[in-house]
């Protein structure tokens, strides 16, 4: 199998896995019992699946990439040609997509956390096995 085929398979696998997690997050959002459990599903599923999908895009960009670096020689001119007119442009796109990954990884969990905290301060009760004032503490202990 040639390079483009392998790269396509890897990227499609990553994107499909990401979509699977998206499905899990969506089902969790509808089926979990209370606000906190739902946010947990949305936060975790969303983060991982967006990461996987964007990573799949990044891998897909490499389908024309020359992994042998055959055009690259040890002089400034060939480096410039590689960077500004050749495969360097692909690397640029891949780096941008990886940067998006990094930002999703930082912001998405924080966003979920801030929403949950707002819910807790607003007095949304988590659904617990045992009702009552100290039910959460008991649930954590036992």
């Amino acid at each position: 199998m040639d390079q483009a085929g392998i790269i396509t398979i890897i990227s499609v696998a990553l994107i499909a896995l990401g979509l699977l997690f998206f499905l899990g997050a969506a089902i969790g959002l509808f089926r979990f019992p209370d606000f906190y459990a739902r946010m947990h599903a949305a936060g975790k599923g969303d983060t991982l699946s967006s990461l996987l999908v964007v990573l799949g895009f990044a891998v897909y960009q490499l389908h024309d990439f020359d992994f042998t670096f055959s055009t690259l020689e040890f002089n400034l001119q060939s480096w410039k040609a590689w960077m500004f007119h050749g495969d360097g442009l692909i690397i640029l796109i891949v780096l941008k997509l990886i940067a998006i990954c990094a930002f999703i990884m930082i912001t998405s969990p924080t966003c979920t956390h801030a929403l949950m905290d707002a819910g807790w301060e607003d007095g949304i009760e988590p659904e617990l096995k045992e009702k009552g004032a100290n039910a959460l503490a008991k649930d954590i202990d036992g």
Partner: protein
Amino acid sequence: MAMKWLALVAVVFTGALLIYGVSDFPDWGSADSPANGGIEGAGRSVSQTFIQETKPLTHVPNMVTAVLADYRGYDTMFETVVVFAAGMAIFAVLRVLKTVDGQHSRVIRDRSVDGDHQRIIVGTTCKILIPVIQMFALYVVAHGHHSPGGGFQGGVILGASFILLGLSDGMETAMERLSEGKFVAMAAIGVLIYAGIGLLSQFVGRDFLDYGALQPLLGTPDEGWARSHAMLGVEVGVTFTVTAIMFAIYVNLASKGELKGGL
């Protein structure tokens, strides 16, 4: 009541004028309209002219941005003025100038006990992200005359970074960075930069907003580069106004016009 009737008459009159103007339009989808087929004798249509001449005349690879900032510079200038006027309207409606000291309409939430963990996580994330967001905003502005992006988008991103600081660390912290005097001045300076670049080309002896006239001032090899650079200049002006007005709207809404306490 009389004012309402007067307003109705004005609206109906303006509407009638617009509808009357529509009758002079070329037919819908007409191949002979100036936009599609060109004026008789002139040869090319308007869109063909832009497609063929934008790059050689302005050195801007993206013709949409060239049309936005150069060919219809008037329109974009008054869009900036509209943003400025919207900010001033928000100011006029919401801003409370006389307040009793120590009496805020909104109580500042006591974050000492329960809020600390929230403050650490959200605060740290914002501390990491705000510089990156501002860098990205400047990148969008710097590409305004060259590719999709520009003053409006970059200004909104830059304004959002200040709003994020206000949301995560308290409005007063953000106000320390961008006080009321500063953002009102910034909004006005933005419009002034745009109109000033337009006026500058008028002083040289050409039309208002005809950036090509700035070639001797900017020292560029030809008029196209002068137009390209002047476009960046007006985008910077737009950024000033949009950033300031975004933040002004946020602080006025968040503190009910008192600019104290806040969310």
